């Protein structure tokens, strides 16, 4: 036994050394981007996020790119929206791991553009559409006169509701914020079963919808003065907005108080939702026989743009995506060609038909003229961006806002929580 113990001790010491040291480590491989445009043929890796981009568009992109660039291939790798900032932080900084073309949320782009993660695209802006490109998006991706990303699509959330339930509860489609809140609460009261029924489906982590109530009350997430960003969640106006959100969380929503807003079609199709605020492309998933419920609740589906306190459309978050080329990609020329295809009229038409607002103003009519198109256009008319602070993606990455809204949903003291969130954000906003 003596010998066994001895060798075990040796093994233990070695194992200890291995595991403790392996616990830390960081990779950094400096270096600058390649100066030339890269090889003539290569495999171009395109990162698209979530299921937003329809399959038809993906197929078209791959086929067209490979036709036009014989010898090269294009691979689409689907990423998750959740955790995207972290993923990009690690992969974009590595020359061997970086994808060539990435889709990034328009609110996340500024952090990466100011850090130098993307290759400049100013020279190709004209060819891609110039002034026709959605202006808010181009501005958001421009640092010191250089543009690092172009819009891919836009889309603001609007309200999906169940016509039959509204009717049964004797409610009209609300036209002001107050009416909306009252209707949401009345719907919940009119449907005591199931217990997790939502008059307004509002999971606790959903700060992107939560921001609407802050903005509608005249508050803001953060404000800029002389290039310095300061958090603004504890301003009296913001607090009023957060209190409205808390009322909805506690009296109208049956969604998990700590849940996120992924897969809203699941509760909708389970008959647990009266109203919910989601992107337009959710319609396709509700009507899909595999993910949705085309024969039941989808038939009762109606939409409207969330009304603000003044009766105009409420200031919802201007959602959407940018497309950028990784600065460390070795295939700059080919990547540019792929981006050009993604902004072409053909590709953007497919996107528009799927309910996504195209990247070019001139194509907006492609959305059609049904109630969905009307809601899309109306919601976008008063949409707002998250603060264009250089450190905004860090705020998102640290989950400060998910934590804030989740705590509000659980009935926490709004003023205290807002002050805490402000304190956390103040260290992050300015990069």
């Amino acid at each position, binding site marked *: *036994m*003596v*010998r*066994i*113990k*001895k*060798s*075990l*001790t040796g*093994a*233990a010491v070695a*194992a*200890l*050394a*291995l*595991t*403790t*040291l392996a*616990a*830390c*480590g*960081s990779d950094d491989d*400096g270096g*600058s981007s390649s100066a030339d445009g890269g090889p003539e043929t290569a495999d171009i890796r395109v990162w698209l996020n979530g299921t937003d981009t329809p399959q038809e568009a993906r197929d078209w992109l791959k086929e067209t790119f490979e036709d036009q660039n014989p010898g090269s291939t294009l691979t689409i790798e689907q990423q998750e929206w959740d*955790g995207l*900032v*972290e993923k990009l*932080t*690690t992969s*974009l*900084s590595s020359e061997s791991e970086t994808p060539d073309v990435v889709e990034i949320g328009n609110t996340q782009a500024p*952090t*990466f553009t*100011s*850090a*130098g*993660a993307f290759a400049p695209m100013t020279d190709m802006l004209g060819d891609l559409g110039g002034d026709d490109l959605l202006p808010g998006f181009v501005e958001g991706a421009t640092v010191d006169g250089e543009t690092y990303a172009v819009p891919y699509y836009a889309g603001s959330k609007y309200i999906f509701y169940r016509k039959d339930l509204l009717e049964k509860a004797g409610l009209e489609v609300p036209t002001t914020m107050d009416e909306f809140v009252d209707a949401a609460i009345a719907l919940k009261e009119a449907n005591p079963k199931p*217990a*997790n029924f939502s008059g307004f489906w509002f999971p*606790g*982590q959903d700060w992107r919808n939560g921001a609407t109530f802050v903005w509608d009350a005249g508050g803001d997430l953060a404000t800029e003065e002389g290039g310095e960003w300061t958090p603004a969640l504890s301003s009296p106006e913001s607090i009023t907005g957060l209190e409205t959100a808390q009322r909805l969380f506690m009296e109208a929503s049956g969604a*998990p*108080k*700590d*849940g*996120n807003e992924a897969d809203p079609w699941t*509760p909708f199709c389970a008959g*647990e939702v009266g109203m919910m605020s989601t992107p337009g492309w959710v319609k396709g998933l509700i009507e899909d026989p595999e993910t949705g419920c085309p024969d039941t609740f989808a038939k009762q589906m109606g939409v409207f743009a969330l009304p603000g306190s003044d009766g105009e459309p409420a200031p919802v978050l201007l959602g959407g995506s940018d497309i950028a080329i990784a*600065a460390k990609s070795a295939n700059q020329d080919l990547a540019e060609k792929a981006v050009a295809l993604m902004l072409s009229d053909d590709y953007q038409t497919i996107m528009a038909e799927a309910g996504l607002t195209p990247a070019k103003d001139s194509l907006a009519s492609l959305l059609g003229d049904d109630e969905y198109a009307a809601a899309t256009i109306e919601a976008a008319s008063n949409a707002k961006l998250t603060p264009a602070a250089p450190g905004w993606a*860090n705020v998102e*990455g*640290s*989950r400060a806002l*998910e*934590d804030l809204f*989740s*705590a509000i949903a*659980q009935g926490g003291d709004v003023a205290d929580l807002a002050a805490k969130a402000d304190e956390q954000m103040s260290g*992050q906003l300015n*990069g």
Partner: protein
Amino acid sequence: MMTTTSAREEATVSVTGTRTAPVRPARPRRPDRRRAASSLPYLLVAPAVLALGLALGYPLVRQVLLSFQEFGLAQQFGQPPEWVGLANYEQLFTDAYLWRVTLRTIVFCLVNAAATMVLGVGLALVMRAMSTPVRLLAQTGLLLAWAMPVVASLTVWQWLFDTQYGVINYLLTALGGDFEGHGWLLRPLSFYFVATVVVVWMSVPFVAFTVYAALMQVPDELVEAAEIDGAGRAQRLRHVIVPSIRPVLMVVGLLQVIWDLRVFAQIYILQKAGGSATDTNLLGTYIYRLGIGGGDFGTSAAVAIFMLALTVVLTAPYVWSMIRQERTEA
């Protein structure tokens, strides 16, 4: 550490059979040839040391340097970092949050390591009493749990504990509890309960297998002798079996403490599913949120160094007792 001579001795011992070793009187010591001046052992050890130095030394040095720098996202993409001395550490150590997270981490680690050890050793003892087919079935089950990729199994655990559609809520409600729409991840304590279930479930197979293998090495004669001398079940376990497998228990326990101290994937994925990140961060996820999530690599590196020191401090008594054991018994 061992020299080549002692390694050879062990090889001999294991061939001639360790089973008689404990009852045999101490063997006469051979003349000590290890002191003979020879560079051969060093040459033989050199490649391993070199590989370790490169694979572990470089990141460690880089990490230490990083912790003295202001290193953000812009530096990640090529801008030169700024040296800030101890500012990162100062900022951390004056922040009550770090100490809260540290306390949580230590408690979580000790609870999990203890639960894993108790369950693992218990299973190993039970396995000894099982008939072969039953044991094979149990071992296959354990092996599957052990071999399951973390992310895949966590997806299933997440579904099991899902607030709205989870099987656990469904079953507890069916059994008469008020668990409809119960949010398991909502409160930190309940969050850690779920995390503990997942972590322990994943670590028990390793402990059970290792301890079971060690139990196989305990000489039957010894246990029998104790039985004849009138030792009851508990006494046999305490005075014969446990001392015989003590080295294995020590190593496995040590590894559990280290692993549970740096637990990451389970907490990270559960945080995405629900619960507040601030209220449930352990050191592992805190480092990640600071660095990769929040783009503050300098401070994040400082926490990582702090965690390394903590690991060393927490495991030092263990290592020390093992070294002492070697000295007194060798």
